[in-house]
């Protein structure tokens, strides 16, 4: 009982085509990933600071993000210093175990709600899970040193040694009920001493297939209140007039700051300038013949929201390696894992063609009805028309498919199903897709294993 989704998905079509185009454009220098690196984790690696520190310069910024139903929402988040816009969530900081990490935070003058600092008197950063964090400069706050908007150029420098590998968040440590909800958070990844192909020492993964999914929720009503106050020239406590965290009533649920279907648009899609991180999980099926040994993909969950989210992949169970950047003594398999607010998980993902679906069209013992005796919702589909992996079939006249090489798509979503809505519109919200391409093939010209040509 919902409106047709044709118009909404038509938007994805352009995005999907864009993904293909970018993948082709990147193929020369990029890793030979089916993904073309398009929605894999996009690391900010920082500069080299004094004392050999890995140094990041972050600014607290305000601006707008957009949602698939056409709404735009005023938010606060972080950006690399000098960037044209805020990015939501903040830049993903990637460091190596043992690194001295230095983050310099400033809050530029608040402007016109588009590219300035945030209209709060103070802001700061916490690094949950890190030990020995020092903060210098600024003003003493409740939890850490804070940047004072009343002091031009005020800066706080946070330093710590990345002592334990894993997936972390960083977030505002000031007026958290407001500032974290407004979007002041980001991801932080510490790679183990074994190297960047490992999630922890002894646990390696396919470096072409590393994904970071950051969860969050938004009550646009709270944001509108602050937006209007800000546009009226209010700052500091006055900008929060009317803001009641207890009345929070979420309408949007996000992965990497985007709601589905925007989630599956690639990294840096120009149509979402303030939401640069994609969330499509794209892998190749395991090779059934075993000629090419493919490592599992690594998926990092980080829940920056205020609610717990039960996250469920279709297609296969996952292997949980660690929680809150601390490895479990052994793997636990799960088909749904509830990620608590503030919690992170590291999981290994793979899909193996155990049933020999690929290519042959071998009968499956049941007779599928003709496609015109089935229903395609809204006239567009992520189904190829063929049950077998790597095959495409002609679809009914009024149906358009997004598949290009007979790949499979599996939803991967919050199972609190009211969270996979965009306000009141289904197949949205905290949902992404798991794209499974046919197994890699050995490309003699390139001298390496590559995704089938039609998938690239």
């Amino acid at each position, binding site marked *: 009982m919902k409106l047709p989704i044709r118009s909404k998905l038509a938007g994805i079509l352009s995005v999907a085509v864009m993904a293909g185009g970018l993948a082709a454009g990147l193929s020369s220098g990029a890793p030979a990933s089916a993904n073309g690196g398009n929605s894999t984790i996009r690391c900010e690696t920082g500069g080299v600071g004094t004392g050999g520190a890995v140094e990041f310069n972050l600014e607290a910024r305000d601006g707008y993000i957009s949602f698939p139903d056409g709404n735009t929402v005023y938010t606060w988040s972080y950006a690399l210093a000098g960037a044209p816009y805020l990015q939501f969530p903040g830049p993903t900081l990637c460091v190596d175990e043992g690194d001295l990490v230095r983050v310099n935070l400033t809050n530029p003058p608040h402007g016109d709600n588009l590219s300035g600092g945030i209209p709060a008197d103070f802001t700061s950063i916490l690094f949950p899970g890190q030990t020995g964090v020092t903060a210098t400069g600024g003003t003493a706050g409740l939890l850490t040193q804070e940047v004072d908007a009343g002091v031009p150029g005020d800066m706080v420098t946070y330093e710590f040694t990345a002592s334990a590998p894993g997936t972390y968040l960083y977030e505002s440590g000031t007026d958290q009920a407001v500032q974290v909800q407004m979007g002041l958070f980001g991801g932080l990844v510490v790679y183990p001493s074994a190297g960047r192909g490992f999630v922890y020492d002894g646990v390696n993964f396919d470096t072409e297939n590393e994904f970071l999914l950051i969860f969050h929720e938004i009550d646009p009503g709270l944001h509108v209140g602050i937006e209007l106050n800000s546009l009226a020239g209010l700052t500091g406590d006055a900008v929060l007039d009317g803001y009641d965290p207890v009345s929070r009533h979420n309408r949007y649920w996000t992965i990497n700051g985007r709601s589905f279907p925007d989630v599956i648009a690639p990294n840096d899609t120009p149509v979402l300038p303030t939401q640069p991180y994609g969330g499509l999980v794209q892998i190749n099926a395991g090779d059934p013949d075993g000629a090419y040994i493919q490592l599992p993909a690594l998926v990092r969950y980080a829940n920056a929201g205020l609610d717990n989210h039960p996250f469920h992949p279709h297609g296969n169970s996952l292997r949980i390696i660690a929680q809150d950047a601390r490895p479990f003594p052994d793997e*636990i398999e799960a088909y749904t894992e509830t990620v608590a607010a503030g919690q992170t998980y590291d999981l290994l993902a793979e899909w193996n063609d155990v049933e020999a679906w690929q290519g042959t069209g071998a009968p499956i013992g049941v007779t599928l009805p003709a496609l015109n005796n089935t229903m395609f919702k809204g006239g567009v589909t992520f189904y190829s028309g063929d049950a077998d992996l790597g095959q495409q079939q002609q679809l009914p006249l009024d149906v358009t498919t997004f598949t290009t090489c007979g790949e499979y798509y599996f939803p991967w979503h919050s199972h609190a199903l009211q969270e*996979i809505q965009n306000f009141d519109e289904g197949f949205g919200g905290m949902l992404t897709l798991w794209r499974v391409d046919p197994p890699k093939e050995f490309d003699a010209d390139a001298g390496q294993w590559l995704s089938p040509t039609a998938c690239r």
Partner: protein
Amino acid sequence: MMSEPKSQYGRRSFLRNGAIASLAAGSGVAAGRGLISSAAAAGGPGFLGQATPLVDVVDPLVIPSIRLMTTDGHISAPGRRFSGPQPHPIYSFGFRDVDDQRLHAAGGELNKNPGDLVTKYRGKVIATSPTIVVLEGEEMAIVLTNLGFEGRPDLDDGHSLHWHGFRNATAVFDGVPETSVAVPPGRDLPYFYDLKTADEPGQTVGSAGTYMYHCHFEDVEHVQMGMTGVIFVEPRDMYFLPDGITPKPRVKIAYNDNSAGVDSSFAREFAILTNEIDPAPHDNLEALQEFVWSDYNPKYWTLNGRCYPDTVIPQITPIEQKAPVGEFLDMPLVPVTDDEKAEAEMYYQRNSSLIQVREGERVLLRLANLGYEIHSLDLVGVGEMRVIAHDASLLIGKAGDNDLTYTSRRIELGPGEARDAIFTVPAYDDLNAEVDTLAARMSPAKARKFNRYLLKSRAGDRLHNNGEVDPDDGPSYAKVSDTHGGMVTEIWVYPTLLDAPGLGQDGLPDQDSVNETFPTLVVPVGQV
């Protein structure tokens, strides 16, 4: 009746390798085994049950299959009853099986065309859906037949079936209409899955464990409207020696033998699905109104689709599915007593959560959550549970030799998650026992007593029915003094069979099917 095991290789692989001959015979295996866990069809002594032809889409000699019909109807909750001065049951959607699962030639309904089923079943929803029991090593199919809506003939909603949690599942049978296909009204589609064993190629673990199934078409609406069910896979070691060929006496275990030494054996098992109900979208749908799903705000909390005290009303099965063994009590055509009136309210909510056990037994709880809230369930007074599996995965680590099972008094269950937990029943205490009026109704000669314990939500606000705990609110099993509603069920502990005669009691029979109650209520002929 013991069947042959499936070949080590999947049939599809076989066909690819050109070995077509003799397959039908080889995998005819479990065709004699029904999938629905009614008192009749579940794996009772000797695999009694019926094949399900559905010859149009599935060859029953190759693949055991069941037909589930999707439709709408009403369900009952305290304050929202079929009977009483102001009848106002809750509009719902659901899957249901046919009443008569015998072969067509014998008068059954299994291979009728969808059109033949509409008159009898459209508008007669059953929610939650039947618990489906399948055997590891078999290929299987659930044929989904969309009967349309009686109450909303203007809606052309499709339906689908999602195999929730099954490993290496394929897209076309994933049941998500945006990434595969859906079933339009008046059509059907067989949803196939191959329940592989651990020793088949590409496998590291077998398929045994507790899963779910639900509709994924307009998922937030159809799932909340009631299209949810439990499906679980019995381990192959339960039926065959390690060679995979030699039959062995059926020993109840939840998972295959494992080098970690985890004991998954049990005497009785109960599948319990947690849900919530927000009446607003149900009422809006019936009144042709939209609902804004981000306003979801439940008022009822259910176990197997029922609120306490309805949760303890016995299991209900159609008379055609009545097994040759077991205790049965006919549902009266015209209910007279309060208990009978309460039972009649449950015509369309057939899954009981009543847990009847004998002292000292190991009892397996298969807990699954298809609500949208996280639930925390307490086992009050019974002691501890051993949680042996999460999400159909025995807790034995990557190499399978690490016992990661744990003891808990509480199960925390997120939406879409499942847990398998085993508890040992405490000793029977005759001094504080209550008389089993159910057994007495079945036969005045059946003297039975039990001790009562609770399995319930920890959250006090979920122990209400739309804000009420008044047992006088319509026909009810509740005692006058009862102050519970919502997400609660009871555990009735009886003495051992050995002790029962000494205590002047008729003993509690062994369990033949999941969630079996003593007695089971039988829907009379002509009632659906």
